[in-house]
C-alpha cells in the first residue's frame, strides 16, 4: 500500500494523454463520416457539469469534431450496439469508441450473435482510467478518484480494433482494492458471506438501472419481468431482491465484461461488480475461461469439454 498511499491524491497521469486521444478520435470520426464509411459515430461529448461526459451519437462531421475522451468518459458505449439502444442509431455501419473493458463487452456481443464484426468500425482508445462513482469530477483524476476496476485493469490498450486513439502513458502501480475486498469475502464463513450479501441485496430498490446499463442484459423480456409463470417476485422485498441478484449473477457469469457500469449506476451502492468478479474468478478456476477482447466461439457455460471440473456436483 505504501506506494499507493503516496500517490493517492497527486494527479494520476499527465492530462495531455487524454487530449491526444480526443484529437485522434475526432480526426477518425470526422474522416469516417465525411467519407461516408459510417452513418454514425457513437462517442462521448462534454456533459453539463464540469468534468463530466455523456454519450453522443454523432452523425455529422460537426458533431464528430466535438467528441472527447476524458476521465469522465465512464459509460460503456457497447450498450448502444445491444438491445433497445440500437434503435437510437441510424441504419448502416456505425463506429463506436471503446475502452478496453468496453471492448470486452463488444466482443462478447459479437460472440452472442448480437452484431457482426463487419457491422461496426471500432475505435479503441488507450485508456489510463476513468473516475469512479462519487468522484469529484472537477478535480484532476487521482488514484483516490480512479474507478476501482481501473486500478487493476489489464486492458488499458485495446487490441483488435480498427484504430487505437492515443498512446498509453506510464501508469503507477496501485493496490488492487477489489481483489483485496474479494479476498476478505473469501475468508468469511459461508454463513458470514450469506449475511453480507443478503444485507447488501436488502437495500436494492429494484430500479433495474443495473440491468438497463448492462450491454449483456439484452433480453426483450427479462426472466425477472415475467409473470406467467412468475420466477421472481417483482416488488423490492428481500426475498425477490435476492432472487433477482442471483439470476443476474448467473445470467452474466462468463459473459460480464467487467465494465462495472452496473455498480456505478446503482443508487443504493450495492457492490455488484464484486459479485461479477467472484463469478469470473470461479469460472477461471474451474474452466480456465476468461472474457477477452476477441469474440469467442463458445461461452464458459455453453460448452462442454471432457475433463471439465465437475466437483461442484455433490
Amino acid at each position: 500500500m505504501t506506494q499507493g498511499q503516496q500517490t493517492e491524491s497527486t494527479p494520476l497521469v499527465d492530462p495531455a494523454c487524454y487530449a491526444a486521444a480526443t484529437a485522434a478520435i475526432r480526426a477518425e470520426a470526422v474522416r469516417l463520416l465525411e467519407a461516408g464509411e459510417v452513418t454514425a459515430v457513437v462517442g462521448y461529448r462534454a456533459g453539463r457539469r464540469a468534468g463530466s461526459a455523456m454519450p453522443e451519437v454523432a452523425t455529422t462531421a460537426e458533431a464528430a469534431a466535438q467528441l472527447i475522451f476524458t476521465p469522465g468518459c465512464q459509460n460503456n458505449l457497447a450498450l448502444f450496439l445491444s438491445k433497445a439502444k440500437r434503435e437510437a442509431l441510424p441504419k448502416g455501419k456505425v463506429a463506436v469508441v471503446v475502452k478496453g473493458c468496453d471492448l470486452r463487452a463488444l466482443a462478447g456481443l459479437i460472440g452472442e450473435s448480437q452484431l457482426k464484426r463487419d457491422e461496426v468500425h471500432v475505435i479503441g482508445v488507450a485508456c489510463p482510467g476513468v473516475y469512479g462513482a462519487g468522484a469529484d469530477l472537477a478535480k484532476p483524476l487521482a488514484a483516490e478518484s480512479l474507478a476501482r476496476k481501473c486500478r487493476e485493469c489489464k486492458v488499458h490498450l485495446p487490441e483488435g480494433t480498427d484504430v487505437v486513439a492515443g498512446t498509453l502513458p506510464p501508469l503507477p502501480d496501485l493496490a488492487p482494492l477489489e481483489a483485496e475486498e474479494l479476498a476478505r469475502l473469501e475468508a468469511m464463513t459461508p454463513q458470514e458471506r450469506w449475511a453480507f450479501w443478503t444485507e447488501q441485496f436488502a437495500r436494492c430498490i429494484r430500479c433495474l438501472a443495473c440491468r438497463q446499463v448492462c450491454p449483456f442484459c439484452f433480453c426483450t423480456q427479462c426472466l425477472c419481468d415475467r409473470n406467467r409463470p412468475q420466477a421472481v417476485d417483482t416488488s423490492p422485498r428481500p426475498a425477490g431482491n435476492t432472487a433477482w441478484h442471483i439470476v443476474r449473477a448467473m445470467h452474466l457469469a462468463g459473459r460480464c465484461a467487467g465494465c462495472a457500469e452496473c455498480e456505478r449506476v446503482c443508487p443504493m451502492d450495492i457492490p455488484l461488480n464484486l459479485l461479477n468478479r467472484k463469478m469470473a474468478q470461479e469460472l477461471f478456476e474451474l474452466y480456465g475461461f476468461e472474457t477477452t477482447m476477441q469474440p469467442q466461439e463458445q461461452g464458459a457455460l455453453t460448452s462442454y469439454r471432457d475433463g471439465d471440473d465437475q466437483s461442484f456436483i455433490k
Partner: protein
Amino acid sequence: MSRIGVFVCHCGENISRTVDVEKVAEAARGLLGVAHACDYKYMCSDPGQALLKKAVAEHRLDGVVVAACSPRMHEKTFRKATEQAGLNPFLCEMANIREHCSWVHEDRDEATAKAIDIVHMLVERVKRNRKLQPISVPVTKTSLVIGGGIAGIQAALDIADAGHRVVLVEREPSIGGHMAQLSETFPTLDCSQCIMTPKMVDVANHPNITLHTYSEVEEVDGYIGNFQVKIRKKARSVDMARCTGCGVCMAKCPQKKIPNSFDRDLGMRPAIYVPFPQAVPNVPVIDRVNCTWFKSGKCGVCQKVCGPGAVDYAQQDEFVVEQVGAIVVATGFNLYDISEKPKGSPIKGYGEFGHGKIPDVIDGMTFERLASASGPTGGKILRPSDGREPKQVVFVQCVGSRAREKGISYCSKICCMYTAKHTMLYKHKVHDGQAYVFFMDARTPGKGYDEFWRRSIEQEEAVYIRGMVSRLYQKGDKIVVMGSDIAVGIQVEIEADLVVLATAVQPRQGAELLAQKLGISYDQYNFYSEAHAKLRPVECATAGIYLAGACQGPKDIPDTVSQASAAAAKVMTLFAKDQLEREPIVAKVNERFCVGCFACKKVCAYGAIEEKEIRDRQGNLVKVVAYVNPGVCGGCGTCQATCPSKSVELDGYTDEQILAMIETL
C-alpha cells in the same frame, strides 16, 4: 375447470405393499380439477385399461394421470389407451409411485403421503398439457453398417435380402474380421473359413450392398431416418475397377518379408498384398509405409507387371457422402495386448508373463493361426521360436479378464470355450502331446457347450488345474510356468514348450472416437451401451443406431450372429414405413422474445437448433431467432435450462408446468 381422472395401480403388491393405494385415490378425488379417481390391481392389464377408457367416457375426462410405474415402462400403454378412449394421448401422464416411491421406502404412512404428493404434482402438470400431434419425418431406406466382421456381414445380408440398400464400411482391406482368422469353431469344430467365405462372397455379389473396404466413417450428421455420412476411402493405390485380382503384382513385389498382421506376424507378405487369399474384395492394397516406391521413388515393379494397368501410386483418399436412415455399428473387438501397459488406461499390464519377450508365449488368436490349415504353418502346431512341435502346452485362462486388481472386472465370455477347443485341436494334431489348462472357473452356458468342454477333459485328456499363474520365465528352451492348484492347495511348476494366454476381449482401440462421431454412449471400458440391458439390447439410446456383435460386449459367433440379425430386424421395422412417427416432446421457440443469442444452439447436443430470419412484409430483416428442427430435437431440455430469457421450452415440461408442480409441495 379441468376434469382429470386419476388411476391408481396396485401393481400386484409392488405398490400396495408400501403405499395405501385407496387412500391415494381418495386424496386425489379431493384435488381441484379431479373429476374421478379409482384404484385397481393391475392398471396395465386389459380390464385395467378398460376401466380407464370407460371412465374417460363416463366422466367426460379431459386429462388422465396413471399413478403406477415408471413412464419408461408403461407410458406408451396408457397413452394408447387414452387415445382409444378418444382423448389426445399426450393428455395422459404417469405418476411414478413405484420406482420413485413404493420400491424405495419402507414406512407406509410416509410412502403414502409421498405418493399423494406425486399424484398432485402430475395432476397440476396434466392440467397444463397441450394436445400434441406426432411428428412425421421421412425415412431414407438405406442402412449403413460399420464393420465387416461376422456381425456386420450378417446384418448387411439380412437387410439387403429384405430389399433395402446397405452401405457396408470396413476399415481393413478385406471384410471378415476375427472370424476369418479362426481355425475351427466351437462348439461344432467346423472350419471357420468354410462357413465364413461364402458369406463374404455373398456380400460382394449382393446387388443391394455397396461395399467400401479400406474405408472409415469420417463424419455423421442428421438423425433417425435421415443421417448423412461422410466416408473416407483410403488410397488403396490400386484401381478397384481395373484390377482383375490376378495377383501377379504380389508375386513380383521384391519386398517379401513384411510380417502379416492377419497371421499375427508369423507369416510374411509383400508390400502390395491382400491380407489372406480368400479376401473380399480380392483387390490388393499397397502398404505405403513398407513399399520401396513410396519410400525412395524407385522400384515400380508392380505397376510394370500389372496387365490391366490398375496400380496407381498417385491415388488419393476419396470421400463419399451417403444418405442413410439407420446405422448398425459392428466394429467388434481387440484382444488385450498384455505385452505393454495400455497408455492412459486404468488397465495394468502383465509384465510378469513375459508376453512379447518370450517368443513361445503367445495369445489365443496366434494359436488359431497356427492351427489354421491356411495359416503360416499350414495347420501344424509349431513353436514360433524354433519351429519345433511342442509336446507340453500350457493354456492360461482369464488373462486380464475378471482381474479387478488389473483394471478389468468383466468376464470375456469366449475364452473358456476356445481354450477347450484349443486343447482338442492340439491333441488332434500332436497325438503324444499334453495340454494343461490353468483356469478359475469353467463357464460353459450355451447349447452343447458344457458337453464340448467335458470332451476336452474326458476324451482329449487335457489336464485342468484350478488356479492362477503367477509368473512365466524362460529356462533353456522351456518356459517355466509357476502357478497354484487351489483344489489341492499346492504350488505347481510346469516346464512347457509353448504357453497360450487367453487374453481379455476388449473394445476396439479408439472405439470411443467413433462413438463420439455417432453420438452413442459407451461404458467405462468403451464397449458401446445398449438402450436397455434386457428390453432393448440391440438399440442404442440414440434413435436409429443399432449394435451388433462384440463391440457391445464380449460375444461368441452364435451370439454375434443372433444380435446382428436382431439389429437387422430393427432396421427393417424402421424401414417398413415411409414416414417415421416420433414423439412430439420437442422444444419450441417463442419468437417474440427470443433475442437470437444462440446460447441454446451452442448447448444443443443434437444439433437441432438453426438460425431463422424473421422478415417484415417488405422483406427487410427484422431479427434472427432460434428455430428448433422438430425432426432432430431429442427433447432433452438443455436449451430450456440455458436460455436466459426462457424463450425456448419443451412441450410437456414448460416452466409453467414445472413451477405448478413445485407449488403443490
